[in-house]
């Protein structure tokens, strides 16, 4: 076994690998860029080597720097994590040349699977179902249009070397192909240095289901069940679970065996994932097709660990060291259900725009997780596991992936795992930047998610108008009214403990009028009893002014509520939504009827910069008439180009910004008539 390994990665995955290595008694080396000097993974590792400036291209993506760090520290092996150099054959080869072990698959397998076109040919040859499509080089847009026509719309255009949602575009018509083909090529070139594009049939009602493969260097290859990752946004996975609610034991076996056959065909060992696209329309479960194989550890591997009890990182290390797998296919079971939500630094309330910045407050529901080496350890504490690599006061940097943390829950059943997600998300405090906690909580509560009827179009279909918070039931609103009155009473009581009073200390008001979601509730507190609109509310809670998170027991259920005092009330965040709650003493509320409701000004005339970023291009000039939906400007942030479209038709009156300018959030780009 290795004595010391180096982790050629950062953030949560570096922390994740270090935890297992430490448990195995292996010393760890971290490498870090300027931006990560204070990051937890650097602190956690036994040694750390600085490898350059913040941009990944100048640090984490330079094999020579990694190898130099290995030599300097005497690391015998490198775990690449995911992304960065994990699937780069040249890196694996360079390590081999230096006699440093690569904790991953053989170079040949990476090469075979790294090319989307080649891998499809291989899959076909290995007897794996593949999606109809064009395999070969595409000359130009006209050629692409012809191919798309032959396959039949809709089609997907993908950068051959792409991944992670970048360099992909869906086309429903010839027009879409003409508009998009060149930009897919460009993105492929810019992001991956390869402008080849391939086109394939787009499966309707598609589900994204993938098989976890694990093999050793002695010819054993197992499948560790499936994961379903259908809930994606712009091809970026958001929610993953294992097992899949769609997969029957027969289907699992069929998929698993095909994927093992593919892995065997390329001499695979270590952990890998075969991604399949499954037609949800075919209930027989026979319509599954090979999509691609990721020759590395996946972001979502913890859900597999939670249901199988197998530590994938440990297995990867053992396999790299030449050990035989200590298990057979028959040992691989499914225990319970696990769900992972990716907590991203993106703001669902503002069209999911990237939102980098400082974590002014970061309090996960539990501080990391400790893999105690027991199978149950992979499930975290009480079924909650947080894989993260950030800290309060740290930065979610524009240089890297905007993922803040992975929240993994485990339960005996799917519903239990989802309920644990909701509770854990309620207790997850992040301030300083936009995040998707409310959004994933809303998904966990969504009836369609609960039914298991997922497709990769789930988010687009269920949130066509964007996300505005999970709907609150009448019971929840009533509970929030009671909670808000309780908070207000506690604060009023404390305010009345000030010194210098004229007479005896006053009691706080006991009757409140609470406005939640447009509905007014009359709340009365008497002793321990809370009455809402005349009916008793079964509420037990404690609150000390200053608390940012309270746990309220309502009708025996625990409700975690994030509390922020506001002028005249509280902002209460729970169950996937932010509630602006107004709380007035009842006698004051009587006057509320006289207040004039102020209508916020109509901003639809303005094109407003939704996030801080660079104005790459402005497509219109003053006096131009534009159609609703027409692209007006492109703002680049987080290396993503965001196209800003006209909300409605009209004429451009004034242009306030020019291309090349760095804009702040809410800066006005242009004004319509």
């Amino acid at each position, binding site marked *: 076994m290795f004595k010391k390994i180096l982790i050629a990665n950062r953030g949560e995955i570096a922390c994740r690998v270090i935890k297992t290595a430490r448990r195995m008694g292996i010393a760890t080396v971290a490498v870090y860029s300027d931006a990560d000097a204070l990051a937890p993974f650097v602190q956690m590792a036994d040694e750390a080597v600085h490898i350059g400036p913040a941009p990944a291209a100048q640090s984490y993506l330079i094999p020579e720097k990694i190898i130099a760090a290995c030599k300097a520290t005497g690391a015998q092996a490198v775990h690449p994590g995911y992304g960065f150099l994990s699937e780069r054959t040249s890196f694996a080869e360079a390590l081999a040349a230096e006699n440093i072990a690569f904790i991953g698959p053989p170079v040949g397998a990476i090469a075979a699977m790294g090319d989307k076109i080649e891998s499809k040919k291989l899959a076909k040859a290995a007897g794996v179902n593949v999606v109809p499509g064009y395999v070969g080089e595409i000359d130009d847009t006209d050629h692409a249009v012809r191919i798309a026509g032959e396959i039949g719309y809709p089609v997907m255009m993908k950068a051959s070397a792409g991944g992670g949602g970048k360099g992909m575009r869906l086309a429903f018509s010839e027009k879409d192909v003409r508009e998009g083909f060149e930009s897919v090529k460009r993105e492929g070139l810019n992001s991956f240095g390869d402008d080849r594009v391939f086109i394939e049939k787009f499966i309707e009602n598609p589900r994204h289901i993938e098989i976890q493969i694990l093999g050793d260097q002695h010819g054993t290859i197992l499948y560790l069940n499936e994961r379903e990752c259908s809930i994606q946004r712009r091809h970026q996975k958001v929610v993953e679970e294992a097992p899949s609610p769609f997969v029957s034991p027969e289907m699992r076996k069929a998929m698993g065996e095909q994927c093992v056959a593919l892995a065997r065909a390329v001499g695979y060992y270590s952990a890998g994932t075969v991604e399949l696209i499954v037609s949800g329309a075919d209930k027989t479960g026979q319509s599954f097709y090979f999509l691609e194989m990721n020759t590395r550890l996946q972001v979502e591997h913890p859900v597999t660990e939670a249901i199988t009890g197998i530590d994938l990182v440990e297995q990867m290390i053992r396999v790299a060291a030449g050990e035989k797998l200590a298990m057979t296919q028959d040992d691989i079971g499914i225990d319970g259900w696990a769900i992972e939500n990716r907590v991203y630094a993106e703001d669902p309330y503002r069209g999911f725009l990237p939102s980098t910045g400082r974590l002014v407050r970061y309090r996960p529901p539990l501080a990391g997780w400790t893999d105690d080496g027991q199978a149950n350890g992979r499930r975290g504490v009480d079924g909650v596991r947080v894989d993260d690599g950030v800290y309060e006061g740290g930065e979610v940097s524009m240089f890297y992936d905007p993922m803040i943390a992975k929240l993994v829950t485990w339960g005996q059943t799917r519903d239990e795992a989802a309920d644990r997600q909701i509770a854990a998300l309620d207790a997850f405090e992040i301030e300083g930047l936009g995040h998707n906690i409310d959004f994933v909580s809303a998904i966990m509560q969504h009836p369609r998610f609960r039914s298991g009827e997922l497709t990769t179009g789930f988010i687009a279909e269920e949130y066509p108008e964007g996300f505005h918070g999970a709907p609150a039931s009448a019971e929840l609103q009533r509970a929030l009214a009671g909670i808000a009155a309780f908070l207000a009473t506690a604060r009023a009581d404390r305010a009345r403990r000030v010194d210098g009073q004229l007479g005896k200390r*006053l009691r706080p008001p006991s009757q409140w009028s609470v406005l939640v979601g447009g509905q007014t509730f009359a709340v009365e507190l008497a002793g321990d009893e809370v009455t809402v609109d005349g009916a008793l509310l079964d509420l037990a809670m404690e609150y000390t002014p200053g608390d940012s998170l309270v746990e309220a027991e309502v009708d025996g259920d625990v409700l975690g509520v994030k509390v922020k005092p506001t002028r*005249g009330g509280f902002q209460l965040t729970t169950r996937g939504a932010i509630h602006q709650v107004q709380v007035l003493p009842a006698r004051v509320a009587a006057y509320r009827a006289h*207040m004039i409701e102020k209508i916020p000004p109509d901003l639809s005339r303005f094109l407003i910069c939704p996030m801080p970023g660079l104005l790459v291009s402005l497509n219109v000039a003053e006096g131009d008439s534009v159609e609703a939906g027409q692209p007006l400007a492109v703002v680049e942030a987080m290396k993503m180009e965001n196209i800003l479209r006209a909300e409605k038709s009209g004429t451009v009156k004034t242009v306030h910004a020019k291309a090349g300018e760095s804009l702040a959030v809410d800066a006005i780009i242009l004004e319509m008539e």
Partner: protein
Amino acid sequence: MSANIAEMERRRAAARLGGGQRRIDAQHAKGKLTARERLDVLLDEDSFEEIDAYVEHNCVDFGMAENRIPGDGVVTGSGTINGRLVFVFSQDFTVFGGAVSERHAMKICKIMDMAMKVGAPVIGLNDSGGARIQEGVASLGGYAEIFQRNVLASGVVPQLSLIMGPCAGGAVYSPAMTDFIFMVKDSSYMFVTGPDVVKTVTNEIVTQEELGGAVTHSTKTSVADLALENDIEALLTAREFFDYLPLTNRSGVPERPTSDPWDRLEESLDTLVPASPTQPYDMHEVIAKVVDEGEFFEIQPGHAANIICGFGRVEGRTVGVVANQPLVLAGVLDINSSKKAARFVRFCDAFDIPIITFVDVPGFLPGTAQELGGIIKHGAKLLFAYGEATVPKITVITRKAYGGAYDVMASKHLRGDLNYAWPTAEIAVMGAKGAVEIIFRGLGTEEIANRTKEYEDRFANPFVAAAKGFVDEVIHPHSTRRRIALGLRKLRGKALENPWKKHDNIPL
């Protein structure tokens, strides 16, 4: 009930009706509460004790003799806010449009005199059409009586004005001389001459809202400290604000219990100041992580945002916070920020409120607009205010403290009691590049860069200043609250007096 008591009740009821139901309805239709309703929201339940409810005007001209309404357009008296005594007046727009008569003014003067005698703040709710024209000079005299009392009360008891309707002409000068002004958006305005006169005289066309609305005064002019959405929000905010204020200049700050530990450490502050000196950060975070429970009452947030002023509490006791804001104009001192902070510092000093100053200032803002606008005198106001202040003064330099602005921001030399610096502090006469270009005039680019590096290594740290005793200690950012809380405890006994003088001559 005896006939006498019945008569009293009848008169009380009549007085409480003000200008009558029709006018009350009209007031409500404008989204405004009546004078008495406002006091009901402002004060603790049933705590208002009215005086002078039967006062009537003494005017006999223009048919006014037949037109008398008890109370004469203003409701006055006293009550409590969270148990603490306050004197109040609330102008009643339903009675003669709240216009100020001689008697109306005398009512206000009476409660101001009481407040001064017993030592309690005055809150005025302004909603008045102006002078009672029918009374002529008598009304003007009334105003002046109020002005005189505003002046005498200044620095003795806190005075807060809520502008909840019109406040025009000479009437503006009473609130103008109080300590703080809150305005209600859309329903209040303040100007010396209104849009009609402006149009006649200068031919400018301007709306009331643009000329003197809450937004104008809370952003552009700095006349108002806060703009609130409506009457209820304004009144409840005034309650919250009142909780920070001492009752008088002798009472000391109020204290209330808190469970926020005095020695709470905030590890995240260690990473607040970015590595790049040109990258901004939000100074609000430091304030929120230092004061009790993160609660900070900021005044003039919409004006001169390059400096932050407001009240917080440490160990339950009020502190005034002044802080440069690197997020806005790099936290530079300019005319507006100097004036804003100077007035705030003087309020704190007058009422014995300790001042916490967070410093990240690159200097004074250069430019013709500033120089020709008189930055010399305006900047001097803040310098003067800090220099004369005798309350406990604790200063924390988080990053830049350059040039004259370093001196101004509650430096050791201005009798700062405890002057701390974070390890990221740079106390220097100016930025390294600028300094090198002056010291080594005429050097090539490369040489300048080398010298700049040299200068930075030498001066871009707090230790040069610490070696001279200008900084008392270089502290861990995470321990800032603990240091300040402990410092405030130790400074409670601070006794410092300025030389006897009739009054100083601050550069106005």
